[in-house]
């Protein structure tokens, strides 16, 4: 009907010539309508009569569109006539009576799109226009024709734009729906099914929804409606789960150096792009929407995506899968910008327990895996540390430093002491290996070698004027350097760059940490208050924390229910098809958090809307769904959503049930991956430099020989791979260590336990934890890079023994093995340590940088580790005549990476050589940070 109208207009030939007087237009309009009415009233219009209607209507719409509003905003005469005669509705009803094809829907949608977009007077304020529009929209909701969908979303988007500009129409939108017997905000509901669509349609729908979200921030009614009467939030959150399930479970990693998903990586993965679009949309909704909606959405993302989907994905069976999930998580963290959404992700990482182990502890323990998983995990922690989040830093490092028992009691005052004379920097730089002495390398290279360490951080140096409060200082410093350089004194000019970078990074960090709650300076929080044990709260409290932080929903929520795994066994099969994530968020109720509640309660009725939704979904599954309501009812819309979701959920359920059974069979095999890998890797493994011999075998999973009895299932094969890797490790280590590893023998047996013993196994796992934590780190154990303590984390560790936390331990361990680490691992490691060192909190700063601080004998400091590495380097250099040449070659090679400078070939396998070069540069970086701390942290500011 409107297609010609639309096209006519697009050709730029308006059917109504300009300047025709309004009266004439009115007469023409009335005449046309009279003709149309005659045809409308016939029961069975002829084909040519239908065409005539189309022509008339086409012309009439143009007249309506071109009409200006009357005086003082009154309706123009044509509009008044349209309203009086109920023209639009009658036309719509007529077309319904005939065969209402997709083509007709398309035409009518276009007609309204044109009217809404181009009319010169407001039309939507009038019910006789709005009502048929709503009816039309409803009738289009179930359609599957892509063209109709596209046009529908376009029109909805347009309506939302009008709403955003003129919120007064909002009331009408609500009222119109009520007339239809539905209480919903139709244009909003209609958009929901398109939330996760890819392409233009999805984008338009999301844009339109965002307009409404922004509206909700101002309009209590919209907010209430969205939060209480729609499934917007659950659809959004579970949609993430759906999209996540279509992501590749194993990434094809381009090379060994690869450690995180860059834009150029994920742009090549349409499913990931789609996921990120939806995540970005969630982020945007949280940014603009009413707090009620925001809180609800965040809760659903936690309970509907992170816990049920991401947590298990982080605990998959193979290294590649786990590595892939870790890389995704890192990417998500880098994509999210809204604090509320970041909080959700972070509290998942910090507080959620998967099979009684905190996600954080698992992630930390994986840093120690010698495979690419270790590198990817490092990259994830680089992201985490870069958030300047107090909660993260507290859990990772600070909580272990607060009691101050990592240092001698007399040393507490040193924590806040200022290193006025760069004593620490001097001590750090004094660790420079003799083969890399700044007095040794030739001047040209010295000038350039600062490029070495730029590590992709794009910044250029303005040494001049770089001190804000006393910029003249740097002038003189600069002149000092220049004049020294001119006089051929070996002054390390590159060091200026490190100073400049250090200043940027520390001042940025100081600024970011201004929102923190405490100074962490050895007095605030007071160490006495947090003596051993105090920081370690019981498991229950932890869970409560999680619950507490999940925002209170506005909508009625399920009452307190037992944890999902304690659910009554006799559940209807179909019920199981429904996504439990909706009601598995028991703990969200306001009264839930607390001690007074008994740990278990009989399951209460889920809230009404969940019940409804579930009912509908069940009906769909059973295939007995009957359209009880007219299409204008929103239920239909939700059905569509629910149907899709139910399908997804079903798939997901099947999948997860599959993996559940896998893990039941292979439960024991999972053990080494989660914790065992790092537990069982012996100290000698890395220390003895055996990485190179190990890795090829470990990553190539095909040549594994399995001891498993039942390797006939795919699951078993997966487990197999892992076992094979694991055994490979053990074998290597046995030969290396000469069978000294008594403890490992016991652990070797563990993974091959038959499935029947799974439960026992799990108990053993628990026991392992406790036995580790009960262990006293004897000095030699502390020395061992793969000491078991790294994995026990927060699980029942006794604080009587000074311990700086698993994260620091694991970083220092890997650092100690610098010489055998690959170049990119060392870049990541030193990058993370430098980032940590830039934090201004005296506890952290003194721990990492103050070389005067006297630690407890069992505590390993960064300086100690660096000294160990230096020693290793000196030994290496002494035993190899060509070491200095190799160093020069490595320096040139690294320079060549950044410039067009041609370098002599040197194999990257010479990790010791590259590590030596990096080590030297890292010392400079650390020393520069220490020096800048002595200035920046003390610059007085106005109160």
């Amino acid at each position, binding site marked *: 009907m409107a297609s010609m109208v639309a096209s006519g207009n697009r050709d730029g030939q308006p059917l109504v010539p300009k300047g025709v007087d309004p009266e004439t237009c009115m007469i023409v309009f009335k005449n046309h309508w009279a003709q149309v009415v005659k045809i409308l009233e016939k029961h069975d219009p002829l084909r040519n009569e239908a065409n005539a209607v189309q022509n008339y209507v086409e012309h009439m719409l143009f007249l309506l569109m071109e009409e200006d509003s009357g005086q003082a905003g009154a309706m123009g005469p044509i509009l008044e006539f349209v309203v009086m005669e109920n023209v639009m509705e009658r036309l719509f009803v007529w077309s319904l009576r005939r065969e209402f094809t997709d083509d007709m829907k398309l035409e009518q949608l276009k007609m309204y799109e044109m009217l809404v977009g181009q009319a010169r007077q407001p039309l939507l304020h009038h019910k006789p226009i709005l009502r048929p529009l709503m009816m039309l929209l409803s009738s289009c909701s179930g359609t599957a024709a892509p063209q109709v969908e596209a046009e529908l979303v376009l029109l909805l988007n347009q309506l939302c734009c009008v709403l955003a500009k003129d919120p007064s129409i909002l009331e009408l939108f609500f009222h119109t729906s009520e007339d239809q017997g539905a209480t919903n905000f139709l244009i909003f509901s209609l958009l929901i099914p398109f939330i996760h669509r890819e392409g233009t349609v999805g984008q338009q729908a999301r844009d339109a929804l965002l307009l409404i979200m922004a509206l909700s921030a101002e309009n209590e009614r919209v907010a209430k409606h969205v939060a209480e009467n729609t499934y917007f939030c659950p659809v959004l959150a579970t949609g993430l789960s759906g999209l996540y399930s279509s992501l590749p479970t194993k990434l094809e990693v381009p090379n060994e150096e690869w450690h995180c998903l860059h834009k150029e990586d994920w742009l090549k993965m349409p499913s990931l792009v789609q996921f990120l679009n939806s995540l970005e949309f969630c982020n945007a909704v949280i940014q603009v929407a009413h707090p009620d909606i925001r809180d609800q959405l965040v809760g659903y993302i936690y309970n509907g995506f992170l816990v049920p989907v991401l947590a298990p994905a982080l605990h998959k069976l193979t290294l590649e899968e786990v590595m892939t999930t870790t890389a995704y998580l890192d990417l998500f963290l880098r994509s999210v910008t809204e604090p509320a959404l970041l909080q959700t992700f*972070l509290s998942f990482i910090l507080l959620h327990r998967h099979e009684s182990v905190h996600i954080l502890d698992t992630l930390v323990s994986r840093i120690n895996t010698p495979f690419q998983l270790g590198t990817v995990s490092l990259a994830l922690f680089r992201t985490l540390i870069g958030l300047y989040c107090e909660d993260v830093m507290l859990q990772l490092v600070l909580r272990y430093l607060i009691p101050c028992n990592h240092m001698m009691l007399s040393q507490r005052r040193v924590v806040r002491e200022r290193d006025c004379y760069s004593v620490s920097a001097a001590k750090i*730089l004094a660790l420079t290996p003799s083969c890399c*002495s700044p007095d040794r390398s030739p001047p040209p290279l010295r000038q350039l070698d600062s490029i070495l360490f730029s590590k992709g951080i794009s910044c250029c140096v303005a040494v001049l004027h770089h001190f804000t409060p006393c910029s003249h200082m740097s002038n003189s410093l600069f002149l000092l350097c220049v004049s020294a350089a001119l006089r051929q*004194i070996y002054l390390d000019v590159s060091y200026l760059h490190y100073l400049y970078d250090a200043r940027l990074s520390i001042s940025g960090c100081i600024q970011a*940490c201004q929102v923190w709650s405490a100074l962490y300076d050895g007095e605030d929080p007071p160490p006495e208050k947090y003596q051993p044990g105090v920081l370690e709260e019981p498991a229950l409290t932890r869970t409560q924390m999680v619950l507490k932080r999940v925002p209170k929903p506005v909508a009625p929520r399920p009452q307190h229910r037992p944890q999902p795994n304690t659910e009554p066994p006799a559940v209807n099969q179909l019920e199981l098809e429904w996504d439990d994530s909706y009601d598995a968020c028991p703990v969200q109720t306001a009264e839930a958090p607390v001690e007074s509640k008994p740990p278990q309660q009989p399951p209460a009725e889920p809230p009404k809307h969940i019940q409804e939704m579930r009912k509908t979904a069940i009906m769909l599954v059973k295939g007995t769904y009957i359209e009880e309501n007219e299409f204008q009812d929103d239920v239909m819309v939700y059905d569509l959503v629910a149907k899709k979701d139910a399908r997804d959920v079903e798939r997901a359920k099947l999948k997860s049930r599959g993996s559940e059974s896998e893990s039941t069979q292979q439960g024991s095999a999972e053990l080494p991956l989660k914790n065992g890998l790092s537990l069982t890797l012996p100290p000698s493994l890395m220390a003895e430099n055996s990485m190179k011999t190990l890795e090829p075998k470990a990553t190539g999973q095909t040549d594994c020989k399995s001891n498993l009895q039942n390797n006939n299932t795919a699951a078993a094969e997966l487990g197999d791979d892992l076992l094979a890797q694991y055994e490979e490790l053990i074998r290597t280590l046995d030969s290396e260590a000469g069978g000294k590893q008594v403890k490992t023998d016991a652990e070797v047996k563990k993974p091959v336990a038959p499935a029947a013993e799974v439960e026992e196994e799990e108990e053993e796992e628990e026991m392992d934890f406790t036995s580790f934590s009960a262990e006293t780190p004897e000095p030699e154990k502390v020395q061992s890079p793969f000491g078991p303590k790294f994995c026990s984390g927060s699980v029942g560790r006794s604080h009587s023994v000074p311990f700086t936390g698993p994260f620091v331990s694991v970083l220092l361990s890997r650092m100690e093995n610098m010489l055998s680490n690959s170049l990119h691992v060392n870049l990541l490691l030193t990058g993370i340590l430098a980032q940590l060192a830039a934090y201004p909190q005296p506890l952290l700063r003194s721990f990492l940088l103050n070389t005067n601080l006297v630690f407890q004998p069992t505590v390993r400091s960064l300086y100690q580790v660096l000294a160990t590495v230096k020693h290793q380097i000196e030994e290496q250099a002494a035993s190899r005549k060509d070491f200095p040449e190799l160093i020069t070659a490595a320096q040139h090679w690294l320079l060549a990476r950044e410039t067009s400078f041609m370098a002599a070939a040197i194999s990257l396998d010479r990790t010791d050589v590259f590590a030596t070069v990096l080590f030297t540069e890292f010392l400079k970086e650390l020393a520069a940070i220490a020096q800048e701390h002595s*200035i920046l942290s003390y610059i007085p500011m106005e109160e």
Partner: protein
Amino acid sequence: MLPFFFFSLQRSDNEEQSGHGEQRASPARLPFGKKQLPPIPKNAAPITKPVTTGTPAQSANGTHASYGPFYLEYSLLAEFTLVIKQKLPGIYVQPSYKSALMWFGVIFIRHGLYQDGVFKFTVYIPDNYPDGECPKLVFDIPVFHPLVDPVSGELDVRRAFTKWRRNHNHIWQVLMYARTIFYKINTVEPLNPEAAVLYDKDVHLFKSKVVDSVKLCNSHLFDQPKIDDPYAISFSPWNPAVHEEAKERMFTYKRRPEDHHKGTQVSGLSWVKPGSTQPFSKEDGSPQS
């Protein structure tokens, strides 16, 4: 009473005092994010103190000689931030452009015998700081004072700091001492025996000599700085067109932390309740950034 004048740093071009938050335009970024040295400033001159040449690669304590200047520079920076922190009444210092070892200063005496005195001075810091002798403080014009050398203008600092001890002695203490001598006159072992004797024997004559000395100093206030340096302190007569605006800014402006770190707009995150060490312990659970 403060005479009408305005002292400023003698600065070559359009450089502005950094205090009001308007920082110098950042240098142009290089396309590849590479680090490079800035061009040598046109007024670059060799530093006053020659750097020790031909030193062995490592000094006795194992540190590399190449980094020595950096340690010195940062020690002096630390000293300077300490001075700022002390907020010494009536004392202003400014390290020179050419060497961090030379600081220009001025001291305003607000009451007592030397009331209304405005004395410019220069501090010379030994290049083996902090392990050497104590810094020297020399007044531009020798003030009539028992402890100030009538010829060189040098203040007898050493009597207060017989041995300069790192970590204990700081340059702000020297500045503080320079102020104290004008309020509490000491005549023991004077550098200017005439002043000492007069003070003990004929205070009236001493006072009138002091008044003359103060007048003399103040009459030379608008002279060109003794040492030609972009950061030397120079005085000029009050000129509303030039100084009014700056004065207003001085009285209204408070340096806020955000200004201080301009250009690096990073915001951290925290959901830790003050007084707690639990993550996400804030009551409301609403995001705080």
